[in-house]
C-alpha cells in the first residue's frame, strides 16, 4: 500500500516534469510573439520591444527561459507580462470566482445523472427512458452558446432579472437578502448550463453501464435467491455499475481550473476559463503556462485519487 503510494507519487512527478517541458515548447512554437501582439500600436517602438525582451529573458535560449520560468513559478514570483501582477494571485482570485459555478454545476450533474440513468436502465424502453434519451440527445446536440441565449432571453423577458456577470453593476448598498438573491440569479443560468450538458452525457454513461451490469450472471443469481427487485438493482447491480465512475470522479478535479470558456464568455463571468482564454490571445506566457501547470497537477492528483478510491471500492484490486 505505502509502496504503491510512493511509486505512484514518483511516477506522477516524472510525468509532471515532461508535461512542463512539452507545454513550454508548445507555447513557444505557437505563432506570434509576446512582444509583437500589437505591432500597429505606436507605443511599441523597437526600443520598447527590445527592453521588453530583455526584461522577460526572451532574448535568452529556450532552456534558460525554461529554468527562469519554473524558478519563478516555484518561488511564487511569476508575474503577468500584461499588467505585472502576480500570476498566482490573479489565478487565485479567478479561481474563487469559478468555484461556486463549478461546485453547483458538478453537484447538479452528479446528483441528477445517476437517478436518471439508473431509472432509464431499469425501465428500459419505457416512457421515461425514451423521454430521457430524447432529451439527452437534444441537449448534447444543441450548441451550448445557442441554448444559453435561449435561456437568457427566456429568463430576462419572463422574470426581468439581470443574468450577465456575477453581480448587478452598482448594487453596492442594497440590503443583504437582495444582494444574495441577485447573486443566486446570476449564478443560476451558468450553472444550469454547465449541468445540463453534464447530465445529458453522464446519464447516458450511467444508463449503458447499468444495462451492461444488469445482463450479468450474478444479477440472475441475485434474482434466483428471491431478492426483491430494489435490492437486485440498487445493491447488486448499482455497486458494480459504479466502479467505472470512480475514474471519472477523479477527473472532475481538473474541471476546477479549466472552467468553461464558452459559458464564462457568454455570461461575462470573470472566471478561470476566460482568463486563460484572454491570456492566450495576449500571448501572456506566464499565465498560460501557470494555468497549464496547475491543471496538469490537478489531473495527476485526480488520477491518483481515483486509483486510491479503486482500492477501496473494488475488492479485486489489491496490492
Amino acid at each position: 500500500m505505502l509502496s504503491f503510494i510512493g511509486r505512484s507519487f514518483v511516477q506522477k512527478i516524472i510525468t509532471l516534469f515532461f508535461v512542463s517541458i512539452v507545454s513550454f515548447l508548445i507555447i513557444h512554437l505557437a505563432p506570434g510573439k509576446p512582444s509583437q501582439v500589437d505591432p500597429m500600436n505606436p507605443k511599441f517602438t523597437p526600443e520598447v520591444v527590445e527592453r521588453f525582451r530583455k526584461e522577460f529573458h526572451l532574448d535568452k535560449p529556450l532552456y534558460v527561459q525554461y529554468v527562469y520560468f519554473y524558478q519563478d513559478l516555484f518561488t511564487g514570483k511569476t508575474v503577468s507580462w500584461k499588467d505585472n501582477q502576480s500570476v498566482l494571485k490573479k489565478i487565485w482570485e479567478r479561481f474563487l470566482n469559478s468555484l461556486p459555478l463549478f461546485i453547483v454545476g458538478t453537484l447538479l450533474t452528479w446528483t441528477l445523472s445517476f437517478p436518471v440513468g439508473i431509472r432509464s436502465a431499469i425501465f428500459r424502453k419505457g416512457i421515461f427512458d425514451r423521454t430521457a434519451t430524447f432529451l439527452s440527445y437534444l441537449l448534447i446536440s444543441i450548441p451550448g452558446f445557442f441554448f444559453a441565449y435561449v435561456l437568457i432571453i427566456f429568463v430576462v423577458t419572463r422574470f426581468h432579472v439581470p443574468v450577465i456577470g456575477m453581480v448587478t453593476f452598482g448594487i453596492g448598498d442594497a440590503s443583504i437578502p437582495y444582494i444574495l438573491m441577485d447573486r443566486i440569479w446570476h449564478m443560476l443560468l451558468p450553472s444550469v448550463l454547465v449541468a445540463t450538458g453534464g447530465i445529458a452525457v453522464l446519464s447516458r454513461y450511467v444508463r449503458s453501464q447499468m444495462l451492461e451490469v444488469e445482463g450479468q450472471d450474478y444479477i440472475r443469481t441475485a434474482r434466483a435467491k428471491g431478492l426483491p427487485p430494489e435490492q437486485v438493482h440498487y445493491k447488486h447491480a448499482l455497486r458494480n455499475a459504479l466502479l467505472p465512475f470512480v475514474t471519472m470522479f477523479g477527473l472532475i478535479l481538473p474541471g476546477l481550473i479549466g472552467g468553461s470558456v464558452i459559458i464564462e464568455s457568454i455570461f461575462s463571468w470573470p472566471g478561470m476559463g476566460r482568463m486563460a482564454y484572454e491570456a492566450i490571445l495576449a500571448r501572456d506566457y506566464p499565465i498560460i503556462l501557470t494555468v497549464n501547470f496547475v491543471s496538469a497537477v490537478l489531473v495527476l492528483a485526480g488520477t491518483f485519487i481515483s486509483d486510491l478510491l479503486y482500492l477501496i471500492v473494488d475488492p479485486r484490486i489489491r496490492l
Partner: protein
Amino acid sequence: MADDNRLISVQGLKVYFRSGHACARAVDGVSFEVRKKETVCIVGESGCGKTVSALSILGLVTTPPGEIIDGRIVFAGQNLLELSEKEMQKIRGNHIAMVFQEPLTSLNPVFTIGDQISEAVRIHKKIGAESLREKCIRLLKDVGIPAPEQRLEDYPHQLSGGQRQRVMIAMALACDPDLIIADEPTTALDVTVQAQILELFGAIQKKQSMSILYITHDLGVVAAIADRVYVMYAGMIAEQGNTEQIFRNARHPYTQGLLASLPSLSKRGKRLYSIPGSVPNPAYKPAGCPFHPRCPHKAPSCSTEYPKMCDYGQGHLARCPILFQDKGHHT
C-alpha cells in the same frame, strides 16, 4: 405415477423468443415432472431449450424478448405462472433454488462470500446475526469448503472455480429448498472437480431428502446421478424414462444417436459415430418432427405430422411413432 408424490410438474410449456419478425420457439410444448427425493436429468444439446425450461420454473426468463406462451407449472398445488412477482420472490431461493453454469460470473465480485450466502438466508428467514453467521459456516462446511470461518470474508475472485461452485451450492441450500435446479453446474469445471461436485450433490440429496433437477449435455453425468431422464431436442421432449430404460433401451432415434456417439473402450480405434446435420435454428424449425432431417429412420409422414408420444410402459415414452410401429407396439 402416484399424484401425491409429485413435487413439481411442468405441463405443455411453450416459451418463445421474439426478435423483429423472427420468433424462436425455444421451448415448444414441454412437459416433465420431478417427484419427491428424486434426481431428474434433462439432457440435450446447447440451444435445445433445457436452460430456458429451467429458468421458466423460477420466472427468470428475460421478457422481452422471451415470452411464456402457454403451459402450467404446478408446484405445491399452485400454478407458478399465475403467481405475482412478489409471490414468486417467496418461492425463489426458499422453495426452489438454482445453481448456475458459470461459477466464475454467477457470484457478485464486489461482495464477500459470507454476504452473499447470508443474504439468501436473511431474505426468507428471520434469524439473528450470530446464528446467521453460524448457519453460513455450517453451510460452507456442508459443501466441503475448508476453513469456512475464514472463507466468509473472502471475495469470489479469491476462490478456485470448484470452490466457487460449492459456494453457489451452499447459497442454494441456504433455505433448505424442496427442489434444486442445477443448470450445467459442472460444465465450466475440470473433470476431477466435476466428480467431486457430483458426489456433493449425491450426498446433499441423501442427507436432506430434496429433489434435484439437473440440466446437462453430458450423458456420463446423467448415467452417474439420474433416477429419471428427459432427452430434449429442439424444444421438445424426445424421450423420457428411467436411466436404465434410456441407456439400455433407447426408443428415439435421437437418443440412439447420442448414445452411439459416446466414446467407449469397445469402440477404441474406430471412428466415432456422429449424428449427420446440425441442430435446427429455433426460429426456422422444420415442419413435422424437428429431428426428421437428421433421422436415419425417417418416413414420409415425419415431415408433415408432429410426432406423438408413444408409451412403452413403466414411464418410458418416446416421441417417435415410426420406431413404435416397427417394433409392433400397436394398441
